[in-house]
C-alpha cells in the first residue's frame, strides 16, 4: 500500500512541475506597416458583393475535375468579382506517389469547422447557408447561387494592391483599402495565399491524369483563419488602409511555391461566419 501511495504522490508531485514547453511567439509576426483610417469627404457609393468561392476538392475525387471546370468557367466569365479558392481538405485528397501534398491544416480546419465536408466536389458560396446547408453539393446549381450573391449589396468595397513583390527575397508587400458605404456590424479581415498551375496527378472518372493543373489551391491562411477583428464601430464613409509585408518562406519552408502563380485573397467575414465580400490580387501581376 505504501508503494501505491508513493506512486500516487509522485503523480501529484509531477503535475506540479513546470515545463519549458514549445516555442510560442508572443511578438507580432507580420507587423502592420500602415494602419490608418479617415472619413471620406464625399459619400462612398454603394457596391455589390463579390463572391468568395471555397471549392472543396481532392486529387482522388473522381468528379472533382467537373467541379474545377465549373469554377474555372465562372472565373473566366465573372473576372474580379469571383474569388476562387480550391480547398484540399483530407477527404479524398491523399496525394498520389511523390506528388506535392495539396492538403494543409487550414484546409482541414475550414472543412471541419464549417462542414463536415463528406462530399466532393462541393463549395461554400460566401459561406452562406442556402437551403439549410452551407455546403453546396450540386455543381449544376453553383452558377445560379453565385449570381444571386453577386446581386446583393455590400457595406464595404475592398481594393487590394500589390505594392512590391521581390521574387529573389520572396517577399510581398500589399495594401488593402476598405471603403464603407454603410455603418458596419462587427467584422474580421482575413487573408489567404493561393497558387495556380500546380501539377499533380488527379483522378478524373476512372482515369488518372498525371499532368493535371490545379488552380487557386489554398496554400495558407496568412491571418488567423477567421481573420483579424476590425471592430463593430466602423461608420459610413470611413476608409481604412492597411499595409502588410510577408516573407513567403515563413510559410513555405520547403520552397515549393511559385510566386509567379500565386495570389493574395482578402475577405471580410461577419460574426455568423458569412463572408461579406472578397477580392484577390496576383503576387506578380
Amino acid at each position, binding site marked *: *500500500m505504501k508503494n501505491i501511495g508513493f506512486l500516487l504522490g509522485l503523480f501529484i508531485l509531477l503535475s506540479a512541475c513546470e*515545463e519549458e*514547453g514549445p516555442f510560442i511567439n508572443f511578438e507580432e509576426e507580420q507587423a502592420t506597416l500602415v494602419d490608418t483610417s479617415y472619413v471620406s469627404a464625399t459619400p462612398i457609393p454603394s457596391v455589390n458583393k463579390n463572391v468568395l468561392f471555397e471549392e472543396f476538392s481532392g486529387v482522388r475525387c473522381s468528379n472533382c475535375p467537373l467541379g474545377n471546370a465549373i469554377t474555372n468557367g465562372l472565373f473566366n466569365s465573372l473576372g474580379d468579382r469571383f474569388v476562387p479558392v480550391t480547398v484540399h481538405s483530407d477527404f479524398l485528397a*491523399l496525394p498520389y506517389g511523390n506528388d506535392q501534398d495539396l492538403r494543409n*491544416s487550414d484546409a482541414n480546419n475550414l472543412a471541419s*469547422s464549417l462542414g463536415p465536408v463528406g462530399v466532393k466536389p462541393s463549395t461554400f458560396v460566401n459561406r452562406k447557408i442556402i437551403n*439549410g446547408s452551407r455546403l453546396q453539393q450540386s455543381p449544376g446549381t453553383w452558377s445560379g447561387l453565385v449570381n444571386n450573391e453577386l446581386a446583393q449589396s455590400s457595406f464595404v468595397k475592398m481594393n487590394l494592391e500589390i505594392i512590391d513583390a521581390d521574387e529573389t527575397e520572396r517577399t510581398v508587400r500589399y495594401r488593402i483599402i476598405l471603403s464603407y458605404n454603410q455603418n458596419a456590424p462587427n467584422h474580421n479581415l482575413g487573408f489567404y495565399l493561393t497558387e495556380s498551375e500546380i501539377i499533380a496527378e488527379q483522378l478524373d472518372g476512372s482515369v488518372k491524369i498525371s499532368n493535371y493543373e490545379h488552380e487557386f489551391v489554398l496554400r495558407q491562411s496568412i491571418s*488567423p483563419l*477567421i481573420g483579424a477583428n476590425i471592430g463593430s464601430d466602423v461608420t459610413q464613409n470611413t476608409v481604412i488602409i492597411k499595409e502588410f509585408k510577408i516573407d513567403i518562406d515563413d510559410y513555405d519552408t520547403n520552397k515549393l511555391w511559385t510566386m509567379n502563380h500565386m495570389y493574395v485573397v482578402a475577405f471580410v467575414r461577419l460574426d455568423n461566419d458569412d463572408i461579406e465580400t472578397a477580392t484577390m490580387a496576383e503576387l506578380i501581376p
Partner: protein
Amino acid sequence: MNKLFTFTFLLLSIAQSIHAQGFISGDLELRNDYYVKDSTIGASGTNHYDDLKSSADGWLTVNYSNDEWGFRTGIRLDMFMNSRFHNPNEDAYTAFGVGRWYVEKDFKKLTITGGHFYDQFGSGITFRAYENRFLGIDNAIFGVKAKYQFNDNWFAKGFVGVRKNRLSFYNPIIKGVNVEGYLSVGEKVTFSPGISAVNRTIDEESMTTIANVINGYELKDRFIPKYNTYVFSLYNRLNIGKVSWFIEGAFKTSEAINDPLNKSIVDPLFNVYSNKPGNIIYTSLTYSKKGFGISAQFKRTDNFQFRTSPEDNETLINGALNFIPPTNRQNSLRLPARYQPASQEIEETSFSLDGTYTPKKGITFNYSFSEIHRNKIKLESYAADNLFRELYLDTEWKVSKKVKTLIGLQFVQYNQEFYEGPANLPTDVQVYSPFFELTYKLDRKKSLRFEAQYQSAQRDFGQWLYALIEFNMAPKLSISISDMWNFKPGPNKSSKNEHYYSVYTSYTEGPHRFFISYVRQVEGIVCTGGICRLEPAFNGVRAGLNTSF
C-alpha cells in the same frame, strides 16, 4: 505480413500442443456492405457509391487460457477492405493486420499483461480503454499492465502504453495507477472506495502542430501548451441496505484543449485551443425493492477533455482516453432513439430521474425524466437555455402467456445546433414520439412482433411513421420488414416524403449466425452510451456472419 502469419501459426501450434491443459476459444465477425446509389436521400457522391460499390470488415479472434498455469494469450486479426466503418464520412480505408494480441500471466497475487488490453478506472472518467464495434471504437492500450491483489478486498493496478489508432498507434504516452477496495461495516453497510491517476505526455510531432496553430492566433489568444497532463479521481460506492450511492470527482491539470464553445478565444465554430484545467463530478443514487425502483443521477462537466491530443484528427470518437457516462435514458426503439445527446467534454450540467413500478405481476410502468444544460444556468431563461430534455413513459403489459405489449410516449426537446452543428440549425427541436409494440407467441418457438411508432419533429425532419413486423422461429430464424416513412417533411428539409425500407433476415445454426438485409437508411446521429457519431444516409445490402467456438 509473413511475421504475422508466423506468429499466428506459432500461437495455434503452441495452443494445440498444450490443449490438454488449456482451453481455446474464439469468434469471427464478418460484415459486407454493398452500396446502391440513391441521390434522393443523399446516399451518393462518395467513392463507395460512385466506384467501389462494396466494403468488407472482419474480426477473427483466437484465445488460449490455461488456469493451471495462470496463463492467457490471444490474437485478433482485423480486416477493413474499402471500409467506411471507422468514419462513414471519410475516404475508403483498407488495412489488414493484427488488431489485438496479448499475453497475460499470474504470479500468485500479481498479474502481468503485455500487448493490447482493455480496462477502466472507476466509472471511466479518468481512463477507459474499450471496444465498441457498432460505433467503430477500439480504444485499446498497447503496453504493459500489472495488477496486484493485496487481499480479497483490495487491489492496485498500473499501466504504461500508447493508445491504439486503428492498426497503428497514437504517439502520446499514457500512464496510470488505480487502487480500489471494499469495506463492510456491519451486515448492511459497505464501501467500495477507489482512487486513480493518469498522465498523458504529448509527442514532439503533435506538439509542433499544436504550437503552429497557436502561433497563428492573435497575440492575446496565444499561450504555451503543456506536454504533460494529469488527471486524478476519487470515487466510492456506498451501499446501505436497498440504497446504493456512487460518487466520483475528478480533476485535470491545464493543457491545450480543443474548445469550440469558448467564444472569448476566437470563434465558436472553429477548432480553437484554450489553456484550461478541468473537473467533473458524477453521482448516482438508487433505491430498489421488489416491484419498485428509483434512480437519480447528476453530472457536472467543466473542460474535462482528455484525449491523446487536442488536434483536429483526435476529436469525436478518435483519440479518447476516458469515458464520461451519460445521465439520460439510452433508448433502443427506432424513432425514440433518433434524438440522443452526446456526453459533452467542455461543459455540461445534467440530471435524470428514472423509475420503475410493478403494481402486480405482468404490468410494469417505467418513467424517465432528464435534462442537460450548459454550466451557467440562468433561472430567467431556464427553459430556453436547455440543451436537452426528455420525458419518457411506458407500460409493459403481459396480457396473457401469448401476448405481451409495450406502449409509451416520449417527449424530447433538443438543441440541434449545439449537438450537430453547424450554426443556424434549430436550437429547440420539439419531438413527440408515441410508440407501441406487440409480441404474440404463436407456439413455444415461434413468435410475431409488431412495432408501430409515430414521431413529430416539426423543426427538423417533420413527421415520421415507422412500422416493423418480425417473425422469429427460435433459435434459428428471424425475418423482419420495416418502413420508416417521412410522410410530412419539415419545412427546413429539402427531402420529399421518402420511405426508408428495410428487410432483414438471419439464420442461426448452433454458434453460427448468418444475416442479410436490404437497408435504406436516413442520415442521423447514432449513439451508444453517450458516445455518438453522425451516420450518413445509406442505401444498399448488408450481409454478414457471426460465429464463436
